[in-house]
């Protein structure tokens, strides 16, 4: 059995089972959720399956990677004192129901941590895009329904808690054993507190390292798009000194703007504020540099956000790729602003290629298109075959995702790496 990467909601386990057995996936999902609500064990089984069953075409499962993840394992162990605290509180309150499901739920939580840390990159991006909107339900937002949802959930929890308290102990005697419990909890916190703190510090360091790697990736993408592309153009125009000088000068200006003014090369400048304007600029640049026709069709328009600028950068790279490799005289670019997303298609009728046969070290598709889109939660589909032309489909979530993006930005603080700040 394999986890399905297509029809997936969370880990693709129900979809995987459905593919294997032929049972309707919706029935499986409803079953899982219903049983999970009352027993807790399906949650554990789900998490276990997530660990052990490999995803789609991958060869290794998450478990094999998790075994080597020392820090992740320590994190999971750190949860155990929390479970003990819960058990103490629960036994005081005589709510055995919570006690029964607490172990499976906490085990599942531990497994989830290991899964999160050891999932492959695309899967992490999926989870991020699936889960972050859920988190933003609890955050400050303009959406009225969010406030209502939050208030309702909070009220339900509070009422539930009070009911449990009153049912367990009708009199104020309930508060006496609580005092003892508080002492035990305090002891646990004193003993494990420092250890938890180091864990948190380690995690922060790790996140910084990841942000740094991401920044390096973005820089590589920029250098590829500007410097390497220009060098390729210069090689092609070697017998045309005037053109070489023009290209070199333009590139010099761009590099200076990047290093000393912090403006990313090849990117659409801040003076452009609307999507259609940016696409028009992209069209003119590519037509001027590569001598092909870019046919643009635009439906709708919207203000440019940071993620849409990334979309434009990726689209430019796709267009330039078509101009350079396809051999077709014309590239079609179609952009449509939909509620919740901007779709952008770059299509040529050139020679096409086999997307699976592209070497992994080729920056163009990997960094400049895929990684750039993934950084902002966008997706890329490339359809091509030798002789069939190529179509690159780019999808960048907007609107709801704008709230998401800000939520992520505040959560990770360093996760908005821009070009190096200007040396003063």
């Amino acid at each position, binding site marked *: 059995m394999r986890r399905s990467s297509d029809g997936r909601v969370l880990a693709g386990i129900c979809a995987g089972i459905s593919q294997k057995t032929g049972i309707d996936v919706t029935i499986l999902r409803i079953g899982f959720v219903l049983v999970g609500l009352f027993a807790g064990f399906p949650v554990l089984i789900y998490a276990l399956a997530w660990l052990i069953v490999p995803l789609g075409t991958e060869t290794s499962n998450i478990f094999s990677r998790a075994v080597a993840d020392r820090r992740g394992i320590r994190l999971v162990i750190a949860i155990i004192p929390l479970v003990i605290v819960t058990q103490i509180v629960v036994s005081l309150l005589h709510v055995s129901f919570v006690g029964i499901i607490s172990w499976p739920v906490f085990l599942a939580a531990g497994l989830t941590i290991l899964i999160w840390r050891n999932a492959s990159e695309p899967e992490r991006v999926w989870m991020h895009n699936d889960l972050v909107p859920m988190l933003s339900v609890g955050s400050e937002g303009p959406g009225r329904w969010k406030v209502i949802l939050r208030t309702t959930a909070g009220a339900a929890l509070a009422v539930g808690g009070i009911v449990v308290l009153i049912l367990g102990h009708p009199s104020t005697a309930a508060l006496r054993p609580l005092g003892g419990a508080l002492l035990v909890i305090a002891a646990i916190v004193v003993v494990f507190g420092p250890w938890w703190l180091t864990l948190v510090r380690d995690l922060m360091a790790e996140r910084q390292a990841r942000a740094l790697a991401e920044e390096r990736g973005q820089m590589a993408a920029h250098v590829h798009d500007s410097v390497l592309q220009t060098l390729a153009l210069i090689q092609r125009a070697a017998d045309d000194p005037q053109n070489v000088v023009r290209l070199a000068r333009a590139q010099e200006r761009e590099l200076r703007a990047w290093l000393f003014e912090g403006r990313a090369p090849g990117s659409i400048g801040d003076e452009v504020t609307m999507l259609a304007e940016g696409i028009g600029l992209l069209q003119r640049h590519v037509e001027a540099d590569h001598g092909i026709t870019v*046919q643009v069709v635009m*439906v709708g328009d919207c203000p440019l956000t940071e993620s849409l600028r990334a979309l434009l950068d990726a689209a430019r790279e796709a267009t330039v790729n078509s101009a350079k490799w396809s051999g077709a005289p014309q590239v079609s670019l179609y952009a449509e602003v939909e509620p919740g997303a901007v779709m952008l298609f770059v299509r040529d009728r050139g020679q096409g290629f086999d997307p699976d046969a592209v070497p992994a070290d080729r920056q163009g598709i990997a960094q400049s298109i895929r990684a750039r889109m993934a950084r902002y939660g966008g997706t890329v589909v490339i359809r091509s075959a030798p002789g069939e032309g190529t179509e690159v489909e780019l999808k960048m979530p907007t609107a709801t995702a704008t709230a998401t993006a800000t939520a992520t930005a505040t959560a990770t603080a360093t996760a908005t790496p821009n070009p190096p700040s200007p040396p003063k």
Partner: protein
Amino acid sequence: MTDTRPNDAHRPRIFLVEDHAVFRAGVRAELGDAVEVVGEADEVEAAIELINERVPEVVLLDVHLPGGGGHAVLHGVLPHHPEVRFLALSVSDAPEDVIAVIRAGARGYITKTISGGELLQAVYRVAAGDAVFSPRLAGFVLDAFSHPTAGDQSDTVTTGLDPELDQISPREREVLRLIARGYTYKEVARDLTISAKTVESHVSSVLRKLQLSTRHELTRWATDRRLI
């Protein structure tokens, strides 16, 4: 682009209305023997007179013409000879021009950058009574029909609108979207697993809605909007 030409012996009789002699010569050369060019004109008055006299099957009509623009020719011919079919050609892509000729009765709209083979295809298609949409026109239609609330909503609450004509169906939208992405009818058909004939009927139906809809947005959109 290797769509095969219909290989029947019939050569459509076409008429060129275009104010650039060089472009007329170019079109003649590109279409070659596949069509019979029954005449040409370089301004509105002469065009109306000659077309009414010779009644060609297809008129290739430049959107920008001295003496009133392409839609003036349509207004001068269609009342007398509704069987004459018009295919609009332009370089400018200004939405208000395109919408104006389509609303005046043109059966299709293409840009002048089109290749010879595609132009011939378009001529055959229009001669056969089908509609021809360039990617840009498909984009216009999607824009005009998809975003009804782009402006203020107050004056769109007009009574007497035919809801059938006022919106395009999801399937038509899909077809238009693929055309806007640069797909040929054949490729659209393959992608949606429908027949090329069905694609043509969807496009024709959209054209009909475009011409008959009394929808406010359509004209307002066309005049308001400055596309790139």
